[in-house]
């Protein structure tokens, strides 16, 4: 399965471990990721704050290049913000004729053109879950992550906004949970798994930003997570690189390592941590990862038989897990 690959600016350095681990696991999973030649920045959440037409055109160049280079109809982005920008411009060009005209008029100045809908923008997590699938992933697991309690942190932009009635739950998705469970880890379903990490707020207002990060760290540690697993470089940066600031600001004592789901997959496939960029996180994951294979997996307690005088009311029927 071939994909046009859009790493995004963070993956070139600050989130290089994400790029390394993604490429490391790609081949064994049957994914061929071919980087778009000469891609440019997607504009993050900044360009659109200054000039909309330019922000769309900036993204449009990437879509046009990908379409022209013809590697695949699927454009995969590992970074949630890039994912949002790419699919938003594609969607808006399709839905709003004025956006389509203006963006293509700008692209024409660079001898480019983009027909909306010609690329399917996907997030790397969705590609692994949908195109590879849990069963195929299971067969590749040689070193199950038993003994490790992981908190799956989706962040916001991977599940929101949904256009055209998408099927993913925008509040409580379960696909990353299920992926991590497939790797053998014990998944900690913490309620704030799609709450925002604050994005660039660290540069706007430290108070606001640190509070948002603190909430996530607090909730994950309340649920006794050993590791937070994320799918976005911004989330990783905020939770990891600013963790000591948060501790200083609030007098807390968090030591929660934050890794990418691709690194977790790589570990479960038996790859060496260094090859996956593990060790480059600010809050070290070494101690947590040492737990893998140590603790015997707790045998699931048999569901107690309902006692005759048990007054508890039945819970409503649950929705199926994705």
């Amino acid at each position, binding site marked *: 399965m071939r994909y046009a690959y859009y790493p995004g600016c963070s993956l070139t350095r600050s989130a290089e471990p994400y790029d390394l681990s993604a490429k490391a696991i790609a081949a064994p999973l049957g994914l061929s990721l071919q980087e778009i030649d000469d891609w440019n920045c997607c504009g993050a959440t900044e360009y659109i704050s200054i000039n909309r037409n330019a922000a769309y055109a900036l993204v449009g160049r990437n879509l046009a290049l990908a379409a022209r280079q013809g590697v695949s109809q699927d454009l995969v982005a590992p970074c949630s913000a890039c994912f949002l920008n790419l699919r938003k411009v594609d969607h808006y060009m399709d839905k709003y004729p004025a956006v389509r005209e203006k963006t293509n008029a700008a692209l024409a100045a660079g001898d480019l053109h983009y027909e909306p809908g010609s690329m399917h923008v996907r997030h790397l997590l969705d590609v692994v879950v949908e195109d590879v699938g849990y069963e195929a992933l299971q067969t590749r697991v040689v070193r199950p992550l038993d003994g490790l309690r992981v908190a799956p942190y989706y962040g916001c932009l991977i599940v929101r906004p949904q256009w055209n009635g998408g099927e993913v*739950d925008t*509040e409580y998705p379960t696909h990353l949970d299920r992926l991590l469970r497939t790797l053998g880890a014990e998944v900690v379903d913490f309620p704030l798994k799609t709450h925002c990490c604050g994005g660039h707020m660290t540069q706007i207002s430290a108070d606001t930003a640190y509070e948002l990060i603190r*909430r996530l760290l607090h*909730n994950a540690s309340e649920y006794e997570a050993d590791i937070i697993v994320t799918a976005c470089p911004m989330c990783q940066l905020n939770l990891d690189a600013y963790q000591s600031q948060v501790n200083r600001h609030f007098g807390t004592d968090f030591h929660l390592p934050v890794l990418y789901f691709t690194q977790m997959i790589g570990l479960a496939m038996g790859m060496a941590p260094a090859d996956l960029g593990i060790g480059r996180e600010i809050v070290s994951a070494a101690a947590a990862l040492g737990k893998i294979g140590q603790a015997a997996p707790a045998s699931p307690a048999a569901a107690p038989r309902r006692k005759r005088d*048990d007054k508890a*009311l*039945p*819970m409503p*029927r649950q*929705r199926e897990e994705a």
Partner: protein
Amino acid sequence: MAERVGVYVCHCGSNIAGTVDVEGLAHWAKDNLDGVTVARDYKFMCSSLGQELIEQDIKEQGLTRVVVGACSPHLHEKTFRRACANAGMNPYLCHMVSLREQVSWVTSDKGLAYDKAKALISAGVRRVQLHEELEPTEVPVNPNTLVVGGGIAGIQSALELADAGYQVYLVEREPSIGGHMAQFDKTFPTLDCAACILTPKMSDVGGHPNIHLLSYSEVEEVTGYVGSFHVRLKKKARYIKEDDCTGCGICIEKCPKRVVDEVFEAGLGYRKAVYRPFPQAIPKYPVIDRANCTYFERGTCRACEKFCPTNAIDFEQADTYLDLEVGNIILATGYDLFDTTQIPQYGYGRLANVFTSLEFERMCNAAGPTEGKIVLRDGVTQPKSVALIHCVGSRDKRHHPYCSAVCCMSALKFGHLVMEKTGAEVTSFYIDMRPLHKNYEEFYDRLQQEGMHFIRGRAAEVTDAARLPGEDGKLIVQAEDTLIGRQRRVPVDMVILLGALQPRADARETAIRFGISCSIDGWFTERHPKLDPVATMTDGLFIAGTCQGPKDIPDSVAQGAAAASRVQGMISSGTVMIEPIVASIDEARCSGCRICNNMCPFNAIDYLEDRGVSFINAALCKGCGTCVAACPAMAITGAHFNYAQITAELEGILYDAMRGNGHAVAAPEPAAAGG
């Protein structure tokens, strides 16, 4: 013999006269159109004086045809036809031309308007001279009525018809009648106990000699037309012989299999595999839930059979079918509650102490799973604080755009019950308060006095992730208190979601089965939303209660009564007139190709095997003309819209070209944008 046509041009105040030269038009008609004996203009033709003008002219001038240029047939065709009938002329010899909706209301250009008005009047005059005297068909009305749905609306309809002396078949698909009202604890604003006011009516239904109660039954097929419907019913097997069952309930007691009752207890309580939905069920006979019965699953148990003192259990019982003949049908099939798991941020299904309104009704009900005690999901702990969230799935483009009409009042009711039974703090999260009907606003005032808290802000989320002091172990409702412009987090023990009322899951299928329509939302469509809320576009089919749209109990009862009254009107007149504007097939020309059979939207065309031709049932035919146009042999005639009449109308429109008098009508200019 030439016809004598009277032409009447209405001013409609200034509605028509403001744009069309009505006086000139009348004169022009008299001077230029063949067959016109008299032509008048008048301020309001629909008034009694206007009608008398027509009647007088018919008598004194010996008119044989009438053309009225006025508003539109939808509004006043009946009026003018009746005027003609009063004067002794067949009403179908009267024709209406629309000079308002088709002329003065579509242009402000007087020249264009006058030209078009002339063309239309000319068309009407030419056509009407080819009209035939038609007689409506009179069909008998079977005095029996079918009421589908045994909730409060259906019960009301059934009782009124039965009390009036007519036979009613009341069909209900659950084992007992009562509907959603039977699930409630108290009703607003009186705080009457729902069961206390409902069960007497249920009892009346059960005992009424004129009501044939067909519970645990469903309608399979409906054919026929107003006055004579044939209905095929399936009576589902109860596996209990009603003739032998005394309703003692020993079978229920002895049954070892317990399952969650998803229907009556809204999933909050349990029932056995053999069960009665609730103690006051009418009829009293239990039902064996085949899907959950150990005997049907594995062939063992049969405890109910062992212990039944009258040998009333019959595992071999089969579904039976019943054919009924009725004259009218009232649909009162009720509503379903919105599935609140579709709004995951409210936590229903994930957070234990989030409840739906129906779950909470069952909780408050003294005969419910907690014997009326308000407790958390653990079944034991009393809440000290409760939040009520309004508009869950209502007023929401993602789910239902409409307001569900009853939730604000239900929230007030719940608030009262919680405070009365537990003394807990109650906070309602609302967008607008809608206490609309009699004594409802006073009920709101009462709850304010009782100390209920109100936060104007749609709840953004319900979470158990504590952040601030006082939140540990609680459910936190986060919302913007819009009246102070601040975000608030309110920690509570229990959250109740006021979910939307939505059409039954199978509403569309039901509509198709009975031959009526649904709106986009899925509610059954009434004939006119303001002036005819219980009739449908299908004669003989009426709707009542929440199946027509969300409403409270008083409105459901009123609609049930209204539908019964309409049916009584039909029954007491004994016959119903079917419009004669129908199609008919000339047998001699029909080749039996059957192209028309499947085209008919009203299933009015049958194929007669023995004669090899198709045949149109005039009572079912609505005169839409589809078959007339489709027939390749032109064997079908549409009465009142035959080939000659339509052609005459076209010739009338082209009057100036036909005359060849060299006067060409200027091509109309495209209408001005937004004009």
